[in-house]
């Protein structure tokens, strides 16, 4: 059985109190709970403070371009479905420059896990507004207040056909680890938004603010995450931010539909051309 330290490559250097520490810890816990090996796990990150996860988490890592973690992660998974793949983005990465990839990944339902670290601004570039900054939020890029309305990732995910939608909080690594673990065992695309305060840039959405503004979705005893209408209702209800497992659906994954031959990932194919078979193909052009 592996331990947390087996996935610990080096000590991180995020700001003291950064939410990403909680995500780092939760990811390690989930990997241990799933009995994974660092050499079989692939972690694809985007650009932002979260992108440093790869420097400290022991696994095969791919630090992609800004907004492009999802296309890379999906390419890896389809070539070798035997590898567990986790993609991680920030709110700018996922909901702004990479938004198109997000929606289509939800539609496509490839069996990977996607964490979106939401600190409600661009931290690495020194505090500009992001798609999740609330209207009126004063930032480096919006000194007179952000004019756009914020985007809600889980709501968008539900509308886009997501089959596993959850929201966690970096201040609750135990719950987050369990959500990641569930997401990684889900057969299809699992999306987990993680509320994660930026202690240096965001003086509004602090850890205290998040604590006061979140509510656990399963506190409602009648809540059934398989009920789409209920999920819709919770997500569109004005008020506190819903945290927990929001929605699960058993639609077939992309691999279920296109890769019946799962035991033989295409990366291990013999590539030498079968000449007789090729002759037959050429006949069609005669």
């Amino acid at each position, binding site marked *: 059985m592996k331990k947390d330290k087996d996935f610990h490559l080096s000590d991180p250097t995020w700001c003291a109190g950064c939410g990403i520490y909680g995500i780092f810890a939760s990811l390690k816990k989930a990997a241990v709970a799933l009995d994974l090996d660092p050499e079989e796990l692939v972690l694809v990150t985007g650009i932002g403070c979260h992108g440093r996860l*790869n*420097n400290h988490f022991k696994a095969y*890592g*791919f630090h992609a371009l800004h907004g*492009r973690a999802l296309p890379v992660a999906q390419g890896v998974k389809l070539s070798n479905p035997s590898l567990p793949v986790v993609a991680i983005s920030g709110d700018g990465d996922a909901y702004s420059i990479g938004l198109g990839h997000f929606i289509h990944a939800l539609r496509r339902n490839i069996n990977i896990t996607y964490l979106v670290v939401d600190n409600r601004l661009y931290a690495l570039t020194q505090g500009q507004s992001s798609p999740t900054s609330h209207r009126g939020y004063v930032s480096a890029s919006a000194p007179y207040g952000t004019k756009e309305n914020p985007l809600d990732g889980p709501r968008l995910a539900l509308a886009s056909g997501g089959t596993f939608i959850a929201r966690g909080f970096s201040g609750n690594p135990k719950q987050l680890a369990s959500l990641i673990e569930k997401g990684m065992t889900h057969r299809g695309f699992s999306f987990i938004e993680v509320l994660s305060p930026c202690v240096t840039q965001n003086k509004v959405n602090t850890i205290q603010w998040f604590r006061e503004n979140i509510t656990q979705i399963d506190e409602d005893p009648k809540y059934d995450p398989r009920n789409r209408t209920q999920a819709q209702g919770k997500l569109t209800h004005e008020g506190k931010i819903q945290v927990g497992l929001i929605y699960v659906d058993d639609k077939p994954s992309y691999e279920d539909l*296109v890769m019946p031959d799962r035991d033989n990932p295409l990366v291990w194919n013999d590539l030498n051309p079968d000449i007789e078979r090729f002759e037959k193909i050429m006949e069609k052009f005669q």
Partner: protein
Amino acid sequence: MKIKGKKIADISVMIAGKAGDGVLFTGNVLAKILKRQGWWVSTYRDFPSNIRGEPTNYTIRASLEKIYGQADDIDVFMAFDCGAIIDHADKIVKGGIFLCDGLGLAHVAPSRIDGRTYHIFPLRKLARENFQSELYKNMIALGALSHILDLDFRVIEGIISETFLKRKGKKIVRKNIRAVRLGCQQAKKMIEQEEIHPLVEKKDSGRLLLSGNEAIAMGSLAAGCRYFAAYPICPATEIWQWLAVVLPEYNGLVIQTEDELAALNMALGASYAGARAMTSTSGPGASLMMEAFSLAGMAEIPVVVAHVQRVGPSTGMPTKTEQSDLDQWVYGSHGEFPRIVLSPGTIEECFEFTVKAFNLAEKYQCPVILLTEQDYGQNLRTVKKFDLTKVKIDRGKLLNQEELEGIKDYRRYKFTPDGISPRALPGMKNGLHMVESNEHDQNGYRDEDSENRIRMMQKRMRKLENAAKDLIPPRVWGDRESEFGIIGFGSTFGPIQEAIAQLKDRKIRAKYMQIRTLWPFPRKKVEEFLDSCKEVFVVENNFTGQLGQLIRSQVQMPIRIKNILKYSSQAFRPQEISSQIQMAVR
């Protein structure tokens, strides 16, 4: 130019109409018939980016000699409406024949103008009266052409049956054959014997008739490509559509992405995981790929991009041909990184270079671009069967599990004398590493130290320093002793070859260098060629002379070159090259 009564050695048939008329379908059936009758075929499509209503034409050229492009003139013209006369009358050779559906006009006597014969041929009327559907106008037109070209009816029947039997059944096959016969009989009635252009039947030696896009798709299959991600774009989509049918049978995968950003990034993810991966695109799509192109260079991930050029800038003319994206791939993207840009000039080279591209990508761990054009990308040509015994898969320094376990302290980006580092795949034991879009150290972890930066840049850039032996060298054609040189790349191959033959008839000897690897630029060979010429013409389908500029920037000698440029959205005709050279050298 053809003279009546003489043996025909080369003929061009243009079929024109409006988008939706079935011009392409009719032309493709004719092309196949001509190929089966043993002729070398080359087609040329001039279509709008439109599904219905706008003028369109398709030329099918057949020759006893191997051909690589369009001829100067049209001999036989079949039009589905009279509008086409105005657009193309000047292209019809003296002694040529023109058939046109009068759209309701009854048969009128043929008229002879300027040595060409014009016939009103009521295609739609015949179709309606005999088959209760205008759809049959295409097969009636084919019947008329079969009389004019004296085609073998058994071959026609065979192809019609192949075309319709599976999809539509026996009844439709018989109906179509009847329509061809009807067209043939009607043509016999109205066309005099001296107007026909009878072709000699040769033996079909099992050659193939296919487009450059199809050849690239087949080449990628042969090369072991098993992952293809792309976004729809003219005129490249045929590569994908062919692979979409075939790759799943080979345990491979074709995926439609949300945009070209995703297409190249997904291909990079797949390649990183160990698949031979590819994408295809054209002008604007390539611009979106520029971002990930740089990632491929930085992270040293092998990938192949097939770019079928169309007319730009911007949306331009999506279904027409140009050579204006050379700069985009040779100079494009941010930062500096090694890249290989190949330029096939023929359908055979589309196949061969694609196989080569995958080997080069893995050997040098860098992106490889196959730069082609709409012209031979979408048009059909006859080729000899591809020789699969020549296909060798070379995966370069890709490690297997056993080799990897034998390495102490494995480093993905290890500094090596040739700059190429052994490659492990995710999932392998003892191969843990990082792939970084940031500058990184030998293990792949982000590193902003200047010393490391210098060494890492040199390592990456060093990879192609000694690659010349593996790259496809320029090829010299024509009279090597001549002092007049022509340089070109891609689709100009055919027209330049024919221009040289035309110049020879006019007692001007010329030679031609076909550049087949645009980058790394084959400086030495080009310098030798330039040195052996008194005058050099660079022929290009663009406005600014991008190849000419590339040559000027790369060769280390004083040179004078003249550009022969065409940017009308059409490929060169041989005469357009030979006449300009003739004028310049006299």
